[in-house]
């Protein structure tokens, strides 16, 4: 899987890390979001405050937490709360700048599905469920989405809209409306994938290719061919390859066991 000395998975984690701004409060989910955020914290964003939905605040783990409740996240934490504090207070009160999420399916508006494939009442494939993803997508200042780039994942229409993006399902009739029409703030900022980084048009709110991993041989055409909806490439530019420092920190400090990077 390694081309040019690093993998697409590593490039994705690094591209995600670069989106974290130093000093912001980041609410992270388990898996790649955690890897990217910790990489950011160990490189350009040491003052970012990492919070996890199970109740951890300003987590500075010495070893990669397995999940958002792992004792590895508790170690070195100045304060431990509960999901009520983190999600019912910090997040709901608008104290979270960035939410960092994964998902099984995403559509052109950044709507995410982590619930099921097929009809909800009788799914053909069932996933673990929202966890806190829906809450984060509704209430964080902005959300960053990170997921593998495949046609079956980047779809015209998500089978179940777990976590709202830009064009959402209105209660109670499910009609599609833009999120500001129903009084929602926030919204998806970017989708980081195994091929590149996608952003959203300011007026149409549709996804377009912002950058691609040229160093790994990715082209805008490859992204188009692996996306299940029409996606603009007019603004696509090459993304800088990983620095030696980014790779060193990722491999030796953040995920040395390869739990998420699968070495």
């Amino acid at each position, binding site marked *: 899987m390694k081309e040019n000395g690093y993998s697409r998975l590593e490039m994705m984690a690094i591209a995600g890390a670069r989106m974290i701004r130093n000093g912001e409060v980041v609410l992270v989910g*388990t*898996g790649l979001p955690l890897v990217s955020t910790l990489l950011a914290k160990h490189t350009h964003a040491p003052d970012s405050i990492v919070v996890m*939905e*199970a*109740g*951890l605040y300003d987590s500075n783990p*010495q*070893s990669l937490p*397995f*999940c*958002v*409740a*792992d*004792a*590895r996240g*508790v*170690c070195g934490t100045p304060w*431990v709360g*509960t*999901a*009520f504090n983190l*999600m*019912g207070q910090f*997040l*709901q009160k608008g104290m979270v700048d960035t939410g960092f999420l994964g998902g099984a399916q995403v559509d052109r508006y950044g709507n995410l599905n982590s619930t099921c494939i097929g009809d*909800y*009442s*009788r*799914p*053909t*494939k*069932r996933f*673990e*469920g*929202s*966890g*806190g*993803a*829906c*809450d984060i*997508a*509704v209430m964080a200042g902005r959300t960053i989405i990170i997921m593998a780039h495949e046609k079956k994942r980047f779809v015209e229409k998500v089978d179940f*809209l*777990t*976590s*709202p993006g830009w064009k*959402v*399902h*209105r*209660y*109670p009739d*499910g009609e599609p*409306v833009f999120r500001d029409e*129903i*009084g*929602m703030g926030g919204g998806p900022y970017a989708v980081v994938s195994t091929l590149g980084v996608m952003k959203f048009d300011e007026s149409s709110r549709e996804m377009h290719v912002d950058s691609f991993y040229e160093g790994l041989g990715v082209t805008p055409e490859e992204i188009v061919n692996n996306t299940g909806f029409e996606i603009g490439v007019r603004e696509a530019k090459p993304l800088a390859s990983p620095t030696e420092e980014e790779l060193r920190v990722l491999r030796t400090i953040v995920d040395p*066991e*390869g*739990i*998420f990077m699968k070495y």
Partner: protein
Amino acid sequence: MASQAKRLSLEEAVGLIKNGDQVWTGGWTVVRRPMGLVYEMIRQGKRNLYICANPGGVEIDLLIGAGCVYLGETNYIGHEVFGHPYCFRRATENQQEPGYIHDDWTVQTGALRIVAGSMGLPFLPTMSLKGSDIALPQNDSLKELRGKDPKLPRQKLISIKDPFWEGGDVFLVPALRPDVCLIHVQEVGEKGTVRILGGAFLDYFAALASKLVIVSAERIVPEETLLERPELNAIPGFTVDVTVELPYGAHPTALYGEYDNDPWWFRDYLAASRERESFQRWLSEWVLGVQGHTGYIEKLGNRRLELIRTSPEFGYNPSIRRRTDKLEDVA
């Protein structure tokens, strides 16, 4: 609510749980779950349970696989990066094993529902769920049961205009009022004071919200020893009805300062739970076929328990390797 918790054996304590009860399981996904209590529920053949963990983990997958559950309200059921919840999947996908109904929530709304229960409130408002299919009436899996099953709220949720401030839309979500709350912790006092280290999650709220609270612990200790650092005590004793001394009662989930996740257990369980037949064999071997909790711990063996022991400095085991595909077998 008991003025003083009663100390019972594992079998006696679980004997108090009735078929059809609404049961909350404490902890978080693969951390500090009441596994010893759950194994015993399976041994006693509990049926028609209504589970409401927030989030659910391996304990819910097991209960569903063992046929103990008819209804679940959670935001998640899974084993984190260890792998997928195959029993839950078989119970929901393609009608492979019908008999289980699932309704989805989120971490925040589930938290608010148990907090409402702990406050004696019928509901709480939330800003979450807007724009999500989780909120839509058409996706309410329980609508056929509402108004018939007295344990269920009459509606999943409603939307109201904020009557006090800016007038935006907010959802009201109903309280959770479990019959039984199951929690496993490091230490509980003889009178029921609960000490939790390394993240209490929602267990305090669940204990207040539930009618019968059963706490299993690595150690039952004299209350005096818990007076020294009262800020470490997470739940006051008068909410606790029953205590059970149960060393390794959270295994294979992690218990801060005691033992880490058991990656060998997860590897074997995930392989076995992929198919119904191999899951049933696993259940016979590890749950039904052992002599209670003591038999289970003996079967695990000292070597395994030694390998997952945590370091006092970290609260976890810094040398444990967590990639189940690269695990070396324990002799």
